[in-house]
């Protein structure tokens, strides 16, 4: 069996389309590396309290050095005041924003009147005043945020959106080819008449399709993580996720994170996101394998698979009216359970809204979705094997 799987992996990797995907991955690695090492750094400037400007790598190093002073501290009014002296207005506004969101959550808006996060019109003094006011009003509205320098996690969360989408698309293409390329190449006749050419080959092919898809996802995630950690260092594992997502997510995301209540660390959140993405790759791969086993050619397998996964997008786009959403908000939330939407909306409001609306908390979601995905993966996996094993020629 091992030899069969190995052979199927080799065959998949030798396929021109799969080689094209790997090439695309390589281009993206290079882009990520250039982005992280050069572009982000070169365009990254910081001003200290005396308005001295640091740029590129110098700015990163300066920021890392300065952040040591705040390491392990709870974000509060004193923190903000101190950070303002150290980093200036831009940075402090980000942290203030968190508290604006807390405020939105409990449906009180004193802070909102002085600070508009879109136009950024509040002064530092107003932000700090507003913050103090909120602290008095809602001392237990949410858990305190622990500060750590989390440059690597911030960069990695940003990259995960690309990793997810690419991994799902490549899982779809690779799995669609697993069985269908035999029909396209007319090699199925030879395989189906060989000793291990039915059930065992179907098992080997299914394992191969899933393992290559998952392998590429793991490889891409690993390389992205290595690039991020190599540039920004390993600090920030136990830092609060709300501080790391500030630059990458919109208010809704942060609001929902605040609803969650208990603080989630960067590393916990990374694990959660990884698990959800991993599950999505598994389920996409297994559904596509079944379509591939049922099809009569690579083109039809690819088209049908793409259609199956694009369909929820199309349906959502068609029925995405105000009336519908207000009438069927819970039903509408179900869209987020479709793997491709789940990943495509990774940085969007909906992703977080659904997680909390359906499951209430992050952890149940982190468990329920992967379990559902694993059950469906196993189901589709065995269906693919059954379909291919019983396959007969069309004519």
């Amino acid at each position, binding site marked *: 069996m091992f*030899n069969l799987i190995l*052979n199927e992996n080799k065959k998949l990797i030798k396929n021109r389309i799969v080689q094209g995907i790997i090439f695309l991955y390589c281009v993206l690695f290079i882009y990520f590396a250039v982005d992280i090492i050069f572009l982000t750094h070169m365009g990254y400037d910081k001003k200290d309290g005396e308005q001295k400007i640091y740029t590129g790598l110098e700015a990163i190093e300066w920021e890392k050095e300065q952040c040591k002073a705040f390491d392990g501290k709870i974000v509060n009014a004193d923190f903000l005041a101190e950070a303002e002296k150290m980093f200036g207005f831009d940075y402090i506004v980000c942290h203030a924003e968190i508290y604006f969101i807390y405020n939105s959550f409990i449906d009180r808006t004193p802070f909102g009147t002085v600070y508009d996060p879109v136009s950024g019109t509040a002064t530092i003094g107003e932000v700090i005043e507003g913050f103090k006011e909120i602290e008095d009003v809602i001392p237990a509205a949410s858990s305190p945020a622990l500060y750590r320098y989390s440059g690597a996690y911030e960069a990695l969360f940003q990259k995960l959106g690309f990793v997810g989408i690419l991994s799902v698309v490549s899982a779809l293409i690779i799995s669609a080819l697993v069985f269908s390329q035999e029909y396209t190449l007319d*090699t199925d006749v030879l395989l189906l*008449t*060989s*000793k*291990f050419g039915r059930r065992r080959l179907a098992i080997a092919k299914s394992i191969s399709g899933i393992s290559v898809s998952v392998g590429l996802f793991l490889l891409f995630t690993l390389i992205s993580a290595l690039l991020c950690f190599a540039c920004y260092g390993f600090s920030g594992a136990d830092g609060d996720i709300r501080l790391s997502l500030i630059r990458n997510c919109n208010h809704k995301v942060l609001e929902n994170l605040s609803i969650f209540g208990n603080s989630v660390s960067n590393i916990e959140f990374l694990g959660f996101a990884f698990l959800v993405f991993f599950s999505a790759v598994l389920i996409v791969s297994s559904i596509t394998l079944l379509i591939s086993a049922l099809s009569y050619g690579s083109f039809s397998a690819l088209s049908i698979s793409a259609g199956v996964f694009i369909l929820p997008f199309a349906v959502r786009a068609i029925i995405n009216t105000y009336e519908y959403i207000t009438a069927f908000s819970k039903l509408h939330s179900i869209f987020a359970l479709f793997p491709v939407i789940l990943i495509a909306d990774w940085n969007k409001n909906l992703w977080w809204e659904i997680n909390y609306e359906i499951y209430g908390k992050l952890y149940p979601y982190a468990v329920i979705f992967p379990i559902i995905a694993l059950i469906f993966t196993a189901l589709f996996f065995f269906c693919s094997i059954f379909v291919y094993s019983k396959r007969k020629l069309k*004519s």
Partner: protein
Amino acid sequence: MKGNELVIDRLTKNYGNKIAVDRFSAVFTPGVYGLLGSNGAGKTTLMRLICDILPPTSGEVRYNGKDLRSLGENYREILGYLPQKFGFYPNFTAEKFLYYMATLKGIDKNTAKKRIDELLETVSLTDVKKHKIKTFSGGMKQRLGIAQAMLSEPKILILDEPTAGLDPKERAKFRNLLSLFSKDRIVILSTHIVSDIEFIADNILIMKKGELILRGTVDELVSKIKDSVWEVNVPINNLSEIEGKYTVININSEGDFAVVRLLASEKPFENAKACTARLEDLYLYCFNESSVTENV
């Protein structure tokens, strides 16, 4: 698996209203069987049914008394099949492809290596074994297909149009290879090229419109038309009249005259000479087709 007997029992395959194979029954014991029939006679469908890659409409195929469907892997282990139309992985080399097929046929690595080297030599592909299959000519691909079919030294070898694309030298070599290979094995090869099987097949089966219409050794079959083959020298102007009246097997033109080989139950012309019947004559007799070779 002991013994080697393949029984086809009233095997039928319909495609909608079209009957591709019609209640075909035969018993195959070790030997070479030539399956003759025109295009569309149902040869390929029959072979696919025997290989269990096409479900029959009715009837069954039994190997040593057991239904193929119940044998599964055990049947495929003793089966070698060269389809009429099949593909390769274009980026595989000939050697890698055979290793891949050897794994699928459950052959261990050492045995596979020995067997692959032997077969590549036999089908004259040793020099190009490291070349990618996409660079191969049609004949080379066909030879590689023959090699993969023989890889596991199968007890049942089914070859569908095996000589298509092979040049005369390769065809002769293939026939010799098959004669040596067929000892204690069932070899069924289908073709519409009579000369491919005339000298190597122990038994000939002739199919027409899905039915088995004749079966026997070459001599037995040819004896059916032994007094019906004639050669006659006629003016070339009379050819069209003769072609309309008789089944013409061959025309050899020489100036204003032509030597015509034809089928007729009685002496067609005064100057006609009786000829020794050949398998090709029988084939044309069965299918009422003409093969015209004009040497003008």
